[in-house]
């Protein structure tokens, strides 16, 4: 696992720079057989015009992917090995060097139009780049890879993919690894005039399926990628079954790796769901971004489930660790009106639940890569294990016409280390490498809530007939907190004690946490609200982590 490559400098400076960690998310769970034998290579280099703070600049955008060369109705169409390469001209690079940027990382969002039979929708191909050195002069090439949504369609006819706008968020860092000021630069690019008629990426014939048509007439030689008739709606397919074709629905699937490690932003891409299904069939699993299973066993009428993900800073390492999309299952408490002696009116609600992963009360495993002590690239595979109940308490102050909500989530979590690799060498941490005690947050009510536990606070409000904003238990939102990571124990095997290495690397106070919870699925209600649950009643909304 390679971290950033700081230029030679003093050990101390190098240590700081190096600890701007290149974190790795979980290996993408792409079914290897997902890409059919018959595939179509997309490789299009297109002239774009990018708008930078200083003005417009021409740029070349190269889009690559592998897509099936045909599909049948209802079949999942997945793009693999999707990548976007943006070549920024020297003038654009000058904007980065003006910020004293030595390296830059980028998140990209390519809008891809999906058309069929006159219907069309947009999907987002998201990607992230590895940190790249900013050249002193000359162009800068950024290659991003990431997750793209899978598609299905209920209708026969040619399905077309068309390149659209490209949004790029650049995160430049100075030579010592600190963020530049400003810390980010947004670049928006659109196909340039010279790209007219060339933005077609692929045409995928979709046939009614083997049941109805052995299809000698099925196109067997699909057009090669870039040569593509511009109007996506051109009716090139035979007569279609009656009824309006449904818009394609998307399901995000991990698509690509180029052997490069994925950083947290990349994993954030995994959670960013193009809400294609909002136009289609939100009730289906197919319309949902990739997420671990979250089926509530034996649900009751008050069962809720939701996904949560976000970052936890590792202050000691001056970096952030991504806690991947995790399943939380709750039993929603009854809301109770409470009249306080001070005359205020409160609505209280206490719910209890747990993290769920493969039947255990824990997060999925996740990896963090960092350079310990400035030189040793270390990758740790971690998991958060729940050591007690997860309690969600909402207190809504009802001050007509305003409602002000505070929700505290308390849960004891032990950080367990499953695996460590230092400099490419795996160290056996043994089966019982954990923090001595649960992670501990400052507790506003220590007498009422003794013991070490994580405290996250979500604030929400509804003011005078406007929409509710912020965090609300059933619709989600941001939760923040601060946590101390205790020392590790039980780490090492074969006589080697790794407790001190891990404690020195990770343990310590003042680690800021920001988690984003998605809309809950009310698992047990008679008719779940559209867009909140999948067909098998998992949460439909997969949040994306925010910093």
């Amino acid at each position: 696992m390679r971290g950033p490559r700081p230029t030679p400098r003093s050990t101390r400076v190098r240590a700081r720079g190096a600890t701007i960690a290149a974190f790795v998310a979980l290996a993408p769970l792409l079914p290897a057989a997902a890409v059919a034998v018959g595939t179509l290579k997309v490789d299009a280099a297109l002239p774009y015009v990018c708008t930078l703070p200083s003005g417009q600049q021409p740029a070349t955008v190269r889009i690559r992917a592998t897509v099936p060369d045909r599909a049948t109705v209802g079949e999942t169409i997945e793009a693999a090995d999707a990548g976007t390469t943006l070549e920024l001209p020297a003038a654009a690079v000058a904007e980065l060097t003006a910020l004293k940027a030595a390296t830059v990382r980028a998140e990209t969002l390519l809008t891809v139009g999906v058309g069929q039979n006159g219907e069309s929708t947009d999907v987002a191909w998201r990607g992230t780049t590895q940190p790249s050195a900013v050249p002193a002069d000359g162009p800068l090439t950024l290659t991003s890879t990431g997750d793209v949504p899978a598609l299905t369609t209920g209708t026969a006819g040619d399905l077309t993919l068309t390149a659209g706008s490209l949004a790029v968020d650049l995160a430049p860092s100075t030579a010592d690894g600190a963020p530049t000021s400003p810390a980010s630069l947004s670049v928006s690019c659109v196909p340039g005039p010279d790209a007219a008629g060339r933005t077609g990426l692929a045409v995928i014939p979709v046939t009614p399926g083997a049941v109805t048509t052995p299809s000698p007439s099925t196109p067997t030689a699909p057009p090669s990628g870039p040569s593509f008739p511009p109007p996506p709606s051109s009716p090139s397919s035979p007569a279609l079954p009656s009824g309006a074709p449904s818009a394609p629905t998307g399901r995000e699937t991990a698509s690509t790796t180029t052997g490069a490690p994925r950083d947290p932003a990349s994993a954030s891409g995994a959670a960013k769901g193009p809400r294609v299904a909002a136009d289609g069939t939100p009730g289906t699993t197919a319309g949902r971004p990739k997420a671990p299973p979250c089926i509530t066993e034996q649900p009751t009428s008050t069962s809720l489930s939701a996904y949560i993900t976000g970052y936890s800073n590792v202050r000691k390492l001056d970096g952030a660790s991504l806690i991947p999309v995790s399943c939380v299952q709750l039993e929603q408490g009854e809301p109770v009106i409470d009249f306080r002696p001070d005359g205020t009116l409160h609505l209280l609600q206490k719910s209890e639940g747990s993290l769920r992963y493969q039947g255990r009360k824990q997060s999925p495993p996740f990896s963090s890569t960092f350079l310990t002590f400035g030189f040793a690239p270390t990758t740790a595979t971690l998991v958060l294990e729940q050591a007690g109940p997860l309690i969600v308490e909402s207190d809504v102050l009802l001050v007509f016409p305003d409602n002000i909500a505070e929700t505290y989530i308390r849960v004891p979590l032990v950080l367990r280390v499953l695996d460590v690799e230092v400099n490419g060498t795996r160290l056996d941490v043994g089966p019982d490498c954990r923090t001595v005690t649960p992670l501990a947050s400052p507790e506003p009510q220590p007498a009422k809530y003794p013991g070490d536990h994580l405290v996250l606070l979500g604030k929400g409000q509804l003011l005078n007939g406007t929409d509710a904003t912020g965090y609300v238990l059933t619709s989600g939102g941001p939760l923040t907190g601060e946590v101390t990571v205790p020392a590790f124990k039980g780490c090492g095997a074969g006589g080697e004690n790794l407790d001190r290495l891990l404690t020195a690397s990770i343990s310590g106070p003042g680690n800021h946490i920001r988690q984003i919870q998605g809309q809950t699925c009310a698992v047990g209600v008679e008719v779940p609200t559209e867009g909140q649950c999948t067909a098998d009643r998992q949460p439909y909304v997969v949040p994306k982590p925010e910093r």
Partner: protein
Amino acid sequence: MKKQIRNFAVVAGAATAAFALAAGPASAVPSTVWTVNPTPASFTAANSGNVVLSVNGIAMTCTKSNASGTMASATGNPATVASISAIAFGATGAPCTSVLGNVTTVATTPWTVVAQDYTAATGVTKGYVGNVDAKVTVGACVFRVTGKASGTYTNSTGKLAVNSVSGELTVVSSTNCGSAVPVGAKPLFKGDYLVKVAGTSTIPTIVGSNP
């Protein structure tokens, strides 16, 4: 405790009642002939400003709400001058929200628009939206509201201003909503809708008379 609940409801109710009273004095002779123009016709209505349903001080806000139905001249007092065959609260990407979570409302229609009083000087009809029946879901909390909601219709603007008075709407069933939304709670509904003859920009009018 109980006393405070009552006080709270009274305050909310008083505010609404004051608004209703300010809407205009009743005419001397009740109208019995209601002339809707055009008649019969289909109409559509879209909210103007946010629509708010509140129960026990818990507000549920919808930034989007649409309705459609038919309208026709009628006689009697009160008289049903329109039928709302569909009404939606919230839209894709713009759900109704509350501090308990996003709110889903499914209306059982038809609802009615009932005229009771007409003021010729202002062109304002007072009446209510009747036959209200809706199932509201917030997370695992599901409750059903039935009843009516007072409102006014102004010919010059096409605005149907619904502003219910406490007691008109009642929670008739409630599951997993605790004491926040118990059976018997009296929700308040407030929202303005701009009405058009379907497919046009024409504002329909309602005129009451007593020949």
